[in-house]
């Protein structure tokens, strides 16, 4: 599964965009505790009151049917075929309803967009420094954020994974160079088409696409791509905020997020308790501390294979903790029914490329 390489690359680009200045500013500081986040940034989370939110709050979530994703590669070009060959074939297959093709289109489109921006704007020294930092942060990742609040035995598990598989995967990380070469001869995919492909894959239930779509990571990436394009670059996304795809996203994103949590997708759980708790990616809805705590607990359950401690220690009120535990039990049960594992996230974080959709 493939959530992560996209998230990671978004981070890469962000680092580049701010040129480290910004990175210094916020360096180590994303709140790593739900308690901190809940008390420091005032918001409606105490009551999860939706207040004046448009579309997402005063009206119920739209009735979206999220599929159960099954990769369907029949008739699709091999993933190592030249992109100029793949893109037309994938476009046709996606139009016929093949969500795997749509997923690949979204990956190719965003990877190439980003590779082009990186390719023209970073020196080799900058790329190397950036990659070094990424590697360091990957090493710290689980201990620092994800597992800090988990029992020791889970931490040991995660450490093992990151020391072995994860860093091996990292070696195969889809570098801008690799994508840059692949993308050289590929026709750029218009922004609207990338977004439509991402949406198609998300609604088909592809977990990585669901995370991308629901969280708005795709928007963050566009903003960075545009920045990286530099002054005088050729923005491929002119007028992108006027696109009808934005309206669609505003109507649907919250429901996709909710669906991912309720089906116990570890990718969505992970994003919920790491990224989303900072509120930074909650573009459409304020953070819900009950969801954040429930997601953390569910993720822990998927690692440990059993129900962990109550969320009562996560800075919630007793009533909130009861509700979070209830949600978490339901989400974990669904994840087990569907055979989803915490490893899926780890795999997704470091896997790269088109195999992400397969």
């Amino acid at each position, binding site marked *: 599964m493939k959530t*992560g390489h996209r*998230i*990671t690359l*978004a*981070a890469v680009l962000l680092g580049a965009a*701010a040129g*480290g*200045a*910004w*990175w*210094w*500013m*916020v*360096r*180590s*500081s*994303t*709140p790593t505790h739900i308690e901190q986040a809940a008390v420091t*940034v*005032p*918001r*409606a*989370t105490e009551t999860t*009151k939706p207040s004046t939110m*448009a*579309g*997402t709050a005063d009206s119920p979530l739209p009735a979206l049917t999220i599929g159960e994703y099954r990769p369907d590669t029949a008739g699709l070009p091999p993933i190592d075929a030249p992109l100029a060959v793949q893109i037309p074939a994938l476009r046709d297959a996606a139009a016929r309803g093949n969500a795997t093709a749509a997923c690949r289109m979204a990956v190719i489109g965003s990877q190439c967009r980003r590779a082009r921006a990186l390719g023209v704007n970073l020196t080799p*020294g*900058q790329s*190397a420094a950036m990659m070094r*930092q990424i590697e360091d*942060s990957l090493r*710290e*990742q689980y201990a620092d954020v994800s597992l800090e609040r988990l029992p020791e035995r889970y931490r040991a598990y995660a450490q093992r994974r990151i020391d072995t598989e994860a860093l091996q995967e990292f070696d195969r990380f889809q570098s801008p160079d690799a994508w840059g070469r692949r993308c050289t001869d590929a026709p750029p995919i218009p922004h609207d088409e990338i977004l439509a492909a991402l949406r198609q894959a998300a609604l088909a239930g592809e977990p990585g696409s669901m995370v991308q779509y629901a*969280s708005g*990571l795709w928007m*963050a*990436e*566009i*903003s960075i791509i*545009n920045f990286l*394009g530099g*002054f*005088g670059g*050729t*923005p491929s996304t*002119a*007028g992108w905020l006027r696109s009808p795809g934005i309206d669609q996203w*505003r109507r649907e994103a*919250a429901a996709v997020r909710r669906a991912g949590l309720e089906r116990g997708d570890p990718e969505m759980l992970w994003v919920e308790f*790491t990224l989303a708790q*900072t*509120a*930074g*990616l909650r*573009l*459409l*809805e*304020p*953070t819900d501390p009950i969801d954040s705590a429930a997601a953390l607990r569910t993720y822990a359950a998927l690692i440990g294979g059993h129900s962990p401690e109550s969320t009562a220690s996560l800075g919630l009120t007793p009533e909130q903790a009861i509700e979070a535990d209830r949600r978490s039990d339901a989400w974990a049960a669904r994840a087990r029914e569907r055979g989803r594992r915490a490893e899926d996230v780890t795999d997704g974080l470091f896997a790269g490329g088109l195999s992400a959709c397969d």
Partner: protein
Amino acid sequence: MRLTARASLLAASGIVVAALTAWWLQRDDVTALLAPEAKAPTRFDADASASPILDKPSDDTDTAKPIALPPKGTPLGRLWATLQAAAQSGESGAACRLAIETVRCVHVARVAETWAASQASEAGELQTLLDFEGAPSSFGRPAPANDPQARGAVNAMTERTRAAARQCEGLSQDRTDIAISLLRAAALAGQPDAQAVYAAGEGWFLTIPGGMGRPEFEQWRREAPMVVARMLDKGHPEAPGLLAGAYSGQTWLGGLYEADLERATAHLILNARLMGRPEMAERQLTKVPAEIKARARQQAEALYIRHYAGRPVDKPSYYLGAGTRILQSGLFEGETEPVPCSPPRAVDSPVPQQ
């Protein structure tokens, strides 16, 4: 994921990206990041003219004598106690002040939180930063981690963020909700500071959790280009920067514009001229073909004559920080940012005709 979480937070927190990017691009050395040049005021004449396009919250907003706004540094809770009634009854200065201070406080809370936990003095990371920047001016200098001056700056920043956060006590979700609608109302009423923040967009809709789910985001998508056009007409110092970012497609506002390199270049040149740093534009224009640059220079000159010549124009922000810099008030050393939305300076000189 450490970097990822941070990065993603900032991805969405475009104000931070924009502002820090602006410093980065203006930097002379790393220490400059910690002590950016003193900020210039962004006051100018309040727009008292009605617009046939923009709905104003109240007809008498602009004709009423502006109320006296509390001094800079007034705690947020007291601002609300003092100004809420006036703001909600249509006094655009009060609305502007409450809105900007409240949005600023949401941002301050986040910055203070992240900065407080920061270990910015780790030599290794600073070295990476320097490597990344590859800034020639950084070479040969002592590593900031070992530089007492840099350390002092870090400590001072910590203290400033704490103080700024204390001043923001009284922040709540309800107030934030109200603030966004006041921001829009004040912008449409022609309050210059509100115009800049509202039009740039990212400073509020990425800062406020759930900002893009709000009705104001939808309204912003329709209204922002008109607000910016109006700002330019009135000689607002931030207008060229907003338009340079928009036509170049580099900012969130640019998501509402078709890319136009010549116009982007013209506004960039104009912005640098108003900043008093024309060389900054040159640095940005390396990718712009000479013939476009030449036409853009003429366009910039015409824009200057039409909108700015003969007017006292305050120094604008760097173009990527246009419209968001005011929200950084209180966080940086040596800033001279005036009270947001303070009674505008009278501008009597007519717009010169060519």
